[in-house]
């Protein structure tokens, strides 16, 4: 199971802060495809080039390998400070 979190504007766009994915996904890219199948209306947002991903609190990319139990967060460019 993979715990998926959304932050910032993306959270409003997918209309939920988090979702659990039971199907196995071997990489972030695979996980995006799985999410796009589960929620076709998310595809547009998740494939946006500017969307960032963190795996277990560390910045990753589509190639980052996933394992059962990982926490994956998707979010738009940060705007703190």
């Amino acid at each position, binding site marked *: 199971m993979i715990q998926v979190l959304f932050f910032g504007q993306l959270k409003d766009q997918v209309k939920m802060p988090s979702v659990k994915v039971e199907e196995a996904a071997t990489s972030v890219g695979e996980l995006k495809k799985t999410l796009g199948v589960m929620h076709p209306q998310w595809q547009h947002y998740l494939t946006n080039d500017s969307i960032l991903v963190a795996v277990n609190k560390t910045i990753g990319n589509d190639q980052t390998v996933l394992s059962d139990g990982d*926490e994956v967060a998707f979010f*738009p460019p*940060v705007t*703190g*400070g």
Partner: protein
Amino acid sequence: MQDVIEVQTEDFNQGALYDALRQDSLANGAIVTFSGLVRDFNQGHEVGDLFLEHYPAMTKASLLNIVTAARARWHFGKIILIHRVGRLAQGEQIVFVGLTSAHRKDAFDGVQFIMDYLKTEAPFWKKESTSEGDKWVAANVSDTQARLRWDKQDEM
């Protein structure tokens, strides 16, 4: 590590943070501080309150990474980095970065380095209350450029 890194909803007292930096700073004669406040105008429109969201489990680790990266480039005495989250009104303090160094230029570089990385890598997102409703703040290209200059530092 004597550094202070905090993510908090409470306000901070800049003068008290400065005093903490100055403590035991005999070898580090330069103190530089940066504070960021909620402005009344941003990206071309009037702003009311600000809401700062973050990714609690990741934010502090991200700030610690940034401070560690700064320490790998320069010698500093003490570093204090505080970032607020939650709802903030116009004029309120959002962020404080302050540090001590033996060299003036290192002190300025260090605070700018931390702010440039914080603005582009630390997981915070701002939502503004505007006259046309709530609005997520868009990332600034100039922040990305400011961040990238540190990659080129060695060529300078």
